[in-house]
């Protein structure tokens, strides 16, 4: 039983590492900031979750699993926030060319905010 669990853990860890490589390839190959944020957040988090799950299956202790679960929860909570803040900063600072956008709700929203503001 423990041998089977170890093999499953190993496969999960290697699969997670493969997702990290796809994230790296996307980060390197994609053309603008928003595409890179996409590559750097979603596959990266999935890969990390797989690695953490594999590690938890291998260590098989309650304390270790709790710590790994905490890391996973933090990552799932914080990655969307940081990706969102980065994307908005890219929009504001002009790092993303706005000419390529068909529709720009954020610009309209921020202009509206300024009219309503003090």
């Amino acid at each position, binding site marked *: 039983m423990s041998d089977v669990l170890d093999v499953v853990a190993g496969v999960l860890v290697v699969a997670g590492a493969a997702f990290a490589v796809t994230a790296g390839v996307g980060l390197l190959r994609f053309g603008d900031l928003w595409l890179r944020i996409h590559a*750097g957040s979603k596959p990266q988090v999935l890969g990390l979750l797989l690695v953490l799950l594999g590690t938890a299956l291998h260590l098989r202790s309650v304390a270790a699993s709790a710590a790994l679960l905490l890391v996973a929860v933090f990552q799932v909570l914080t990655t969307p926030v*940081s990706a969102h803040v*980065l994307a908005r900063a890219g929009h504001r600072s002009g790092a993303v060319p706005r000419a390529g956008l068909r529709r720009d709700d954020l610009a309209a929203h921020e202009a509206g905010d300024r009219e309503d*503001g003090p």
Partner: protein
Amino acid sequence: MNDVFVWAALGLLSTAAVLVAVRVVRGPTTLDRTTAVDSFVAVLLCGLAVVAADRDSTVYLPVLLVLSLLGFAGSVAVARFVGGDER
């Protein structure tokens, strides 16, 4: 853990780290670099988790926790600074 899995995972993670590091060097904007550094921290977390599993040790787990929060705080701070987030 079986050495084959450990070496395969660490090799893949090293490849990922090199790819991400190239993006950190190339930029072109600070936000691209911040995204890449964020991913680098995630790769580092994966690597530490693999080492922890390989050595059957739990001493690395607090490091994982601290790193995950530190990466988040850093990237949000840089993004707010670059985006002129003063409101």
